[in-house]
């Protein structure tokens, strides 16, 4: 198991050090600093073995978190724990920075004591932790016996993510379907790989211990239901805008720990008692029938040794009534670029020498439109034999629909003990599609 945990600043100075096992000495702290933080080369692996001691590290801005062990630990668990620890710290004091860590070092030690015992991760749900570890010092003195046992049963209990007795005057919930669409396209316009990774984020303000059931247009479920009447054919051709598709094939999905996995496995129904406040209900991945909101058509021509001509066309491919926002096209330029002239029809384009790219920004763009940029790039003559690697043209955007075609069909809330019903709950659903890694090779 984890033998020790260290937090360093960018210089390699220790901000937090907690040793859980005897086999980890103080010299481990220095070993990591010397071999990883101060290493001359770029880090080649997130796991480093130095003198039979293994170091797992993750970096958040310029803060290094390192877990140390001498045993054959579950590596995936260690990384998951480090991420979780970052989440917990962020939930307590915001951004992970040197200043915040120093300001909260007592709190961090306290948290570490609670969430990692002898190197074994324990309950690390922020909701539960906040009931008895706070920044204003520890609660505990003032608690009644009932409160104490409620805390302990929540921390250890089956529903560790929610406490009892929550009350809202207005029962309300927000569902955000957030998708990032990823694309790798060849210069000729052939899709090399495309997938959508989506998240359903829920903000719940519900009283009591509500039992929820979430439904979406999952192909497997729809097909099962559709067996009675043939309703499946309609709307399949309606791709533009992505609203009409009846069902989508989900490659894989994972759920927050509140979801009853065995029930999903057997009936494919998603039922759960949600945590209070914001959390990520599920993640999913689709690869079939993805609506690619934009198409990038590049044209790069080398004119002699000192000049490049670049022309890029973007086409929006969704319902004309919808608007895409925050569109940004990034066209890489060679390192020996001396000057760039750009002409674009829409938006603003600028050559950013520090980033070796032409950045073209468009605030808004409706569906089924097309826009173009052309640039002349002057190059300094070099005797460098190495060819320019031609990094792909990347794109950023935001669209108000789910590129996977996912639709929320229902979210039912049942709370038998309190006097509100599913109809009384105010529900909001929003779809946002963003670009993930959206690249076209040129």
């Amino acid at each position, binding site marked *: 198991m984890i033998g020790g945990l260290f937090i360093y600043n960018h210089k390699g100075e220790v901000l937090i050090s907690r040793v859980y096992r005897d086999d980890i000495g103080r010299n481990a702290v220095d070993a990591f600093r010397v071999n990883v933080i101060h290493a001359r080369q770029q880090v080649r692996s*997130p796991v480093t073995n130095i003198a039979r001691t293994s170091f797992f590290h993750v970096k958040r801005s310029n803060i290094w978190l390192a877990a140390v062990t001498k*045993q*054959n630990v579950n590596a995936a668990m260690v990384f998951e724990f480090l991420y979780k620890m970052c989440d917990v710290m962020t939930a307590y004091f915001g951004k992970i920075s040197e200043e915040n860590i120093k300001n909260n070092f007592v709190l961090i030690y306290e948290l570490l004591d609670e969430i990692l015992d002898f190197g074994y991760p324990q309950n690390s749900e922020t909701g539960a932790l906040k009931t008895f570890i706070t920044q204003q010092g520890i609660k*505990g003195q003032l608690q009644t016996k009932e409160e104490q046992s409620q805390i302990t049963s929540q921390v250890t209990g089956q529903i560790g993510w929610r406490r009892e007795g929550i009350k809202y005057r207005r029962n309300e919930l927000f569902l955000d379907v957030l998708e990032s669409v990823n694309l790798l396209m060849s210069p000729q316009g052939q899709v090399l790989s495309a997938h959508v990774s989506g998240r359903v984020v829920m903000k719940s303000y519900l009283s009591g211990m509500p039992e929820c059931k979430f439904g979406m247009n999952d192909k497997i479920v729809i097909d099962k239901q559709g067996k009675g009447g043939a309703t499946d054919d309609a709307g399949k051709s309606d791709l533009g805008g992505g609203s009409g598709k009846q069902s989508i094939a989900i490659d*894989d999905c994972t759920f927050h720990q509140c979801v009853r*996995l065995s029930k999903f496995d057997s009936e494919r129904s998603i039922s759960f008692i949600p945590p209070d406040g914001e959390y990520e209900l599920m*993640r999913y991945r689709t690869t079939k029938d993805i609506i690619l909101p934009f198409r990038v058509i590049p044209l790069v021509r080398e004119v002699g040794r000192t000049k490049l001509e670049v022309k890029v066309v973007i086409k929006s491919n969704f319902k004309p009534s919808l608007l895409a926002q925050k569109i940004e096209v990034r066209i890489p330029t060679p390192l020996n670029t001396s000057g760039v002239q750009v002409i674009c029809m829409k938006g603003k384009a600028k050559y950013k020498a520090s980033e070796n790219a032409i950045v073209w920004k468009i605030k808004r763009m409706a569906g089924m439109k097309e826009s173009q940029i052309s640039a002349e790039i002057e190059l300094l003559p070099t005797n460098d034999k190495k060819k320019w690697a031609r990094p792909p043209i990347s794109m950023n955007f935001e669209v108000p629909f789910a590129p996977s075609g996912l639709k929320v069909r229902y979210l039912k809330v049942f709370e038998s003990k309190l006097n509100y019903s599913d109809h009384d709950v105010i529900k909001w659903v929003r779809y946002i599609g963003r670009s993930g*890694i959206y690249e076209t090779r040129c």
Partner: protein
Amino acid sequence: MISGPFCVLQENRQFGSKMTDSKYFTTTKKGEIFELKAELNSDKKEKKKEAVKKVIASMTVGKDVSALFPDVVNCMQTDNLELKKLVYLYLMNYAKSQPDMAIMAVNTFVKDCEDPNPLIRALAVRTMGCIRVDKITEYLCEPLRKCLKDEDPYVRKTAAVCVAKLHDINAQLVEDQGFLDTLKDLISDSNPMVVANAVAALSEIAESHPNSNLLDLNPQTINKLLTALNECTEWGQIFILDCLANYTPRDDRESQSICERVTPRLSHANSAVVLSAVKVLMKFMEMLPKDLDYYGTLLKKLAPPLVTLLSAEPELQYVALRNINLIVQRRPEIMKHEMKVFFVKYNDPIYVKLEKLDIMIRLASQANIAQVLAELKEYATEVDVDFVRKAVRAIGRCAIKVEQSAERCVSTLLDLIQTKVNYVVQEAIVVIKDIFRKYPNKYESVIATLCENLDSLDEPEARAAMIWIVGEYAERIDNADELLESFLEGFHDESTQVQLQLLTAIVKLFLKKPTETQELVQQVLSLATQDSDNPDLRDRGYIYWRLLSTDPVAAKEVVLAEKPLISEETDLIEPTLLEELICHIGTLASVYHKPPSAFVEGSRGVQHKRLPGSAGSGESVDSPETTSTAGVSDAPPAVIPSQGDLLGDLLNLDLTPTTAGPPPPAPSSGMQLGGMDLLGGGLDSLMGDESEPLGGDLGGTPAIGAGFGAAPAALPASFSAPVSGGLDDLFDLGGGVGMPMGAYSPPKSVWLPAMKAKGLEISGTFARRAGVIQMEMTLTNKAMSVMTDFAIQFNRNSFGLSPAGPLQVLTPLSPNQSIEVALPLNTSGPVMKMDPLNNLQVAVKNNIDVFYFSCQYPISMLFVEDGKMERQIFLATWKDIPNDNESQFQIKDCHLSSDAASNKLQGSNIFTIAKRTVDGQDMLYQSMKLTNGIWVLAELRIQAGNPNYTISLKCRAAEVSQCVFQSYEAVLKN
């Protein structure tokens, strides 16, 4: 007193003004310790707390504040929980350096363990476990015992981990105090988190006690764990799944039902839960019959979650990729359609890129090769030198792996050479050499292009590759002599690799074009033999020189001999290691691709985990647990009596077969037999028998683990041959050739495929020649290097077969060469019942490694020449043996007359004692005797015109009947 780490933090003084905690990092004044001392003893609570915070801050940056120990401990008795926690933190750090003073704290701990607040009780027991002072541990026992039975689950779950802590400090104490039993009871606790922590603690304790049967996993506990799995935290699920992976289900049905209950975990958001679930499934899948529908379903279910892992954070992607690399080697079918997800993204971290590339090559097949090549070509233009090189190398590997793509690969490589990027060119030349070695005489047209780049090669590997190409194809390169001569100029500055290659290439050239290159060859020979200090180079030089001067024709045959083709398997992980790594999915071992023993110190991790045997195989005899459970239900005596006991048995004429022979050997007893134990460890793995890791049987003990690891070194000693061994062997060989006996010997079959033994292929058979049992083998070297130092050893087996002498392979076995060996056997080796009875597990060693295989010998080989029983005795014995021991078999499609059959059988020492004819049916009464003195009596009924014979066998040891029947069938039909 005031030292380094403090000063560097000074810049943060500015935050002090904000009255936040960061100010504690900034105190760097002189006399600080004194000040702190005063503050710690202050009456004001706030001041005290501030002072303790300062102390902790100093501790964090590595400053020694142990001098304040008594003062800090004095602050411990407080109602302020925050202060208390800080003091505890201090204690955990310094108690060890001040053990006497640490005792001062004990009272408070004991008192806190009685506190009405469960959070405080848990805090006390948690902290006490972290204070690693022997004296304190004694005081810890009572509070811990109470806390383990506390009414509050939070306290119980903390106490469970505390047992593991205490065990780490004083294992004996934990055992004496009976904490282990209490911990076991917690597995049945009503609270899932308590169960999970108890499992984690027990697993850890069990790891350092491979012999104890601590985690006594049986279907009941498994069921409890599976129930808790649905309810506990993500971390608890990981503990439980990792523990489940150590269990070996009894049969495929149990295996399937566990798999069914584990698969829902594949949808968990926590990647570690997913990977641990994959581990359990990959392992238990081994037990499922492949034709089962569920097996296919399971295979299909595994791919999507593995792909999903690739959208996690990069560090986790890396862990996932390292594991997928193992999974695709073990079960390529799982990911075969997922090639695209391994395409490299431009801003993947380099460690992710390199791993993806590796998996791409493993998944490359004829179906997807076009796409893969297009990708690889893209990668070869990237910036990161390592990545580019690997991409170029990957193109070469594709060419070797997928024959149809070779041409395209070569042209892609040529394109890359045209880029003139130095390291790309060099890498390309290295892989083109390999392509030539796989497809000789096919792509020579590219040589001209390669030669153009001769000057840019500055890396030894690339230079050596180029020289090899020039030498190999010297007859087609007009200016080969000039090219090689140009390399010769700086001969002494070259690395050994290049020098050796140059020497060989020039000799090749000379043999191909002797007239023009005499001078060149003399030059290189003298450079190599006279001016070089390198013994390898000198040796090679002399050999060539002598070969050339004595027999140029022989030289030609040697130097220009046809070379074996290279294969793509060279980069696969060796199968036994792969199996072990599959059992470690998700852990560091799977990330390093090394067994835990390679990087974990001490007793932990030396246990070699293995995959369970495939469905239906009853190879679990070795596990004490299965024997005991199996023993209850179907209870034939599980042992072949040893010689002495059998004789005694015969004399006593004991009628009850169940008491025959000694009690079953304790599974571990055999391991004490000196030379055998290192084999035992290895052979177990051959059996694919997942030994109960906590059950304390064969493979589990550290001693054997170590022995196994050291096997290559230790083997020769245990093989030390008797002096007469060689002579015996000669004699036996002579006998074998001179006296053709009628004894049946089955045709040779492949026992050890080359793929599993790094190129060594062994096929063989058994024969009985002139009363001597022989193992006749053909050893073939399909690898590229010479094999020497052969030795052989058997595992204990049912009839005590063991080699009568060493394995006689006198000359080294060169590539593509085969050698016939006959190994005489005796039956005086150690005995252990095998399943099947005639199974023989063999270890063969050579200079490369030790390999294990098993084979089955025809039992007729063990029939001795004096197996003819007196008629009277036969009759008496026939009656004497209870009817329960009689078994009947049918031999079908046999067209021999009874006399012919009798003659044929006699050749294999099955003697006909009497013949009776009743109603046209011939009844042959026959006897045979096994080497260990067991008599087998037979009645063979042959009806004229009916090709189906009926045979009844009677024997005191009824389990041999099946094998005897098989021998009958084999003898009669051949």
